[in-house]
């Protein structure tokens, strides 16, 4: 825990018109740690990830990546700095094959995608990175299938494989398990554990079993604000969390 945070926010706030979606949120992500953000729907979790990935600009507050201020940088810059994200709603290239999805993701790390004449498939390193990413999520052998023809669960796997293929140091995963079968979920949870060894992972997830299985740190958000943050045991026993979130979830 002594290690410095790779990604850190300070009083991050985002307003949409009169509505405050995220208010004064300060979180930290460390390499070797899975930091799970939980909370009821509308708590502002996705808005938080959108700000961290540069898809949305914060109304106020700051984001620091390895100590330097990256607040307000566009998403492609954030991505190049080593922050990869997946989307809650599958956001892939549907007509392209699973392999090409990952290949494009891997190619983004190439110094020059402004190459006009060499065939794209001639870059063995990029191909290998794409294959590795597919294998990591359990899609080896499915690479040649257009993503549109894959099952919903497999599309979710492609979504994660694409993030891996960009070889990020920080992973922002927005409900990676949503829509996945139980077998795939187990695989992805194991993958997350393995990735956590040398990545900083920020995870938004509704599957509480999975969250408590992988998370080192938990942050509970309600109505755009941090209710409590700490180790899983601490969160589990917190009366405030029980009341606001976990309790009601159990009741359902």
């Amino acid at each position, binding site marked *: 825990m002594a290690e410095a945070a790779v990604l850190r926010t300070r009083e991050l706030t985002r307003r949409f018109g009169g509505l405050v979606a995220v208010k004064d949120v300060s979180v930290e992500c460390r390499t070797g740690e899975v930091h799970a953000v939980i909370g009821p729907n509308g708590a502002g979790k996705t808005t938080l990830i959108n700000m961290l*990935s*540069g*898809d949305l600009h914060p109304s106020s507050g700051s984001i620091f990546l390895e100590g330097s201020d990256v607040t307000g940088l*566009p*998403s*492609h*810059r954030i*991505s*190049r700095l080593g922050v990869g*994200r997946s989307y809650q709603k599958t*956001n*892939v*290239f*549907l*007509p*392209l094959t699973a392999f*090409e999805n990952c*290949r*494009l*993701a891997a*190619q*983004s*790390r*190439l110094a*020059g*995608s*402004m*190459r*006009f*004449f*060499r*065939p*794209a*498939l001639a*870059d063995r390193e990029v191909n290998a990175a794409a294959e590795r990413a597919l294998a990591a999520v359990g899609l080896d052998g499915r690479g040649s299938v257009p993503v549109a023809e894959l099952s919903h669960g497999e599309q979710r796997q492609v979504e994660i494989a*694409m993030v891996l293929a*960009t070889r990020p140091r920080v992973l922002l995963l927005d409900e990676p398990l949503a829509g996945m079968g139980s077998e795939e979920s187990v695989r992805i949870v194991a993958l997350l554990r393995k990735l956590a060894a040398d990545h900083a992972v920020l995870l938004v997830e509704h599957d509480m079993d999975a969250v408590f299985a992988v998370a080192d740190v938990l942050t509970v958000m309600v109505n755009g604000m941090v209710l409590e943050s700490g180790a899983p045991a601490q969160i589990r026993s917190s009366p405030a969390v029980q009341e606001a979130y976990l309790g009601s979830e159990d009741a359902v």
Partner: protein
Amino acid sequence: MNAHRIAIAAFLVVVVALAVLPLAADKFYVQLFAKIMIMAILAMSLDLLLGYTGLVSFGHAAFYGAAGYALALLTPQYQAANFWTSFPLAVAASALLALVIGFFVVRTRGVYFIMVTLAFAQMLFFLFFDTKIAGGSDGIYIDVRPVAKIGDWQPFRLDDFTHVYYLALVLLVLTYALLRLILRSPFGRVLAGIRVNEQRMLSLGYQTFRYKLACFVISGALAGIAGYLSAVQFGVVNPEMLGWHLSAAVMMMVILGGMGTLVGPAIGAAIWMLLELGLQSLPSAGGVDFGKHWQLLMGGFIVLAALLLPNGLVSMIAVLRNRKGGIGG
């Protein structure tokens, strides 16, 4: 695999047929097919934007016309320009124009992109239409065609319609090959990603603005090849070359043949040109001179095509083939 071989064979047959055409046909047809090939280059260049990158440009004629005007302005009065300098300069002029216009338009998306490309193309149109640069609204003649001398040797003569025909054929094949190369390159794959889901490309770390701008410039430069050839073939340039009727016609060629296929737009160019010719030679009927008012029928044709042909002729052939295969199997 088999279909791939058939496609290559068909391509070669067409190229060979085009290569021997001037031996059998008279001047009218040689010139007509030269014009068709020039339009095919233009349509393929637009396909890179429209079909492969998803950028609906309604101002493509600007880059076609710019190269034509560049040749006209590079040609000294009563003298010939040098082909080997004027050709690259004209294409560079189109590319430069595309860079400047692209810098502004590529920031916009969807319907804005359509309107802005049209507006900038019209700005150029009015620049040549309203001012006295290069003959104003009447255009300007290129009295003497460019000369392609290397030392004392002259490999081809651009005042000979057959030579112009072969130059157009060679440039058509080269343009096609170049586009195929670009499309399978890392850059080409990025364009495909942008067409499908630009937002995800951004989040993967691609600065899509640069790629779209580069694509816009390449497309504009290739349109410039067509524009230069057209100016050489007819020895005249006028503001119509920059006008939106041509931009719309090229769009129709691409749609007719099938977006994102390269070969389709080239076929679309042929269909369009022949249709235009056919409509223009219609007789009068019921007191209306349809030959003179051919655009009435062309307009009706466009309306029907937009309603009935969502993916072009190439897709229609594919649909028919699948249907046949379905019945057979």
